[in-house]
């Protein structure tokens, strides 16, 4: 069995009286690209926010990159985790260069290392135009690029993406999200699973607060099912139907 980069056990959390996570167990191997979908939609996003340290779980535990969460003050550990959420978070009056510089300083890189990483990010995420103007002037597409670039600045081992880059055209979005690195683990929560085709090699579905299925992307294809919420749910149903039969046999 490959070592796991993300291990969640018994995660629980309610929001507004609704139990969105009701004891979720999930194990994502190193190097996997996992598409996480949920019904209701907010559950997958909530799970990523918990793992990023933004929301406290009501119960359960999780490890990221082999280290139990969480020491908010540990920059060394934090370098290994990247998170991009629906809100960009950084101040819109900062320029892309300032955002990257701030992210580099908070990761404790020295000036030379910061410059090297920022230059690489500018090239990879095509931030050249408007590099020194406030991010707000570039609109949502620029803000989303900068958010991803800042998350990738530390070359994280685990990248948590919560429905990212929705303002960017699909081809460019696919290019940006196809982050390199064989040992990098990506967990991508999405409300539009079909748009993530080609970016993931595993799928997981949270249904009513529980993990309904965690399968390979190929398993869907083998059953002729599409990469949609309905398709993944159908695979989950097929699995539950075959398991008792197998057990009976």
């Amino acid at each position, binding site marked *: 069995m490959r070592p796991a980069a993300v291990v969640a056990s018994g995660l629980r959390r309610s929001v507004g009286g609704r139990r969105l996570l009701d004891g979720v167990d999930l194990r994502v191997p190193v190097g996997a690209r996992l598409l996480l979908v949920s019904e209701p939609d907010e559950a997958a996003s909530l799970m990523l*926010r918990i793992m*990023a*340290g*933004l*929301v*406290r779980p009501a119960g359960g535990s999780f490890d990221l990159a082999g280290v139990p969460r969480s020491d*908010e*003050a*540990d*920059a060394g*550990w*934090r370098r290994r*985790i990247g*998170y991009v*959420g629906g*809100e*960009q*978070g*950084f*101040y819109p*009056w900062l320029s892309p260069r300032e955002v990257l510089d*701030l*992210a580099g*300083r*908070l*990761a404790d890189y020295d000036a030379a290392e910061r410059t090297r990483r920022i230059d690489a990010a500018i090239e990879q995420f095509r931030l050249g135009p408007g590099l020194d103007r406030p991010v707000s002037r570039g609109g949502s597409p620029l803000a989303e690029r900068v958010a991803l670039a800042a998350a990738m600045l530390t070359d994280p081992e685990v990248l948590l993406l919560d429905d990212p880059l929705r303002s960017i055209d699909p081809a460019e979005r696919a290019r940006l999200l196809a982050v390199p690195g064989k040992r990098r683990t990506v967990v991508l929560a999405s409300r539009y699973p079909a748009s993530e085709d080609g970016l993931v090699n595993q799928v997981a579905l949270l249904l009513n607060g529980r993990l309904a299925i965690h399968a390979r992307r190929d398993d869907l294809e083998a059953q002729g099912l599409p990469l949609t919420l309905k398709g993944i749910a159908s695979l989950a149903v097929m699995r539950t139907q075959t398991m008792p039969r197998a057990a009976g046999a």
Partner: protein
Amino acid sequence: MRRFGTVTGLALRELWISYRLLLAVGILVLAGLPSAMLPHTTPALAPTRLESPLEWFAIGLAVALAVVGGMAAAALSQERRRGSAGWLVIRAVPRPVILLGWFAAFVLLLAIGLAPAATLVWLTVAAPVSDVGDAWPFVAPVVGAWAAGTAAVGVGLLLGAMLSPWPAGLFTVLVAGGVLLVAVLGAFPTLAEAPAPAAGLAILGDLPNQARPVADALRASGTALVIAAVALILAITALGRADL
């Protein structure tokens, strides 16, 4: 410490760019204007209530400090809502550091606004009612007012860690404004002698009649700073439990 400096710098820049820094400093300076424009009285004439320019200064400060407290509440709440606090937490900035950074920014802002306001009032009003050349009986209550302002900011940050921006800001203005105005308009001079956090303002408003303005004002400052510290500890606890 480096992260604390970074957060304080970001907070000050955010306040500057959104014009809130100018607004807060402007309100504090404006608090000094009515007292400078009122007809001057001398101690011998024994001004009645609300005729004393210093009392108007204290009233103006009470309102201004409450407004700054409300701004602090709304600012922290907004940081939580729009994800700026979360962006920093993801990058290894502890939540207490975020809170203390914003507190430092507002405490600095209070000092920046109070200094010109107090200087204006000293030059136009206070110098004649104090022993000329001895500014301490005036400076000590102004420090007391600043300390009361830090308590208002602390309470604001506590509410900002729990509520959404408008309710947090409004509630802080009402609570802090109520307490500070009662101190100035209500029970003085008895309140001025009590170790109440807002007593600095009461002493400032009734300065000519104070027997020990420096000692009482410093005692009031200490109480106000303790209130600020307690509010900050509670705010840190609340922010630690909050979803970002």
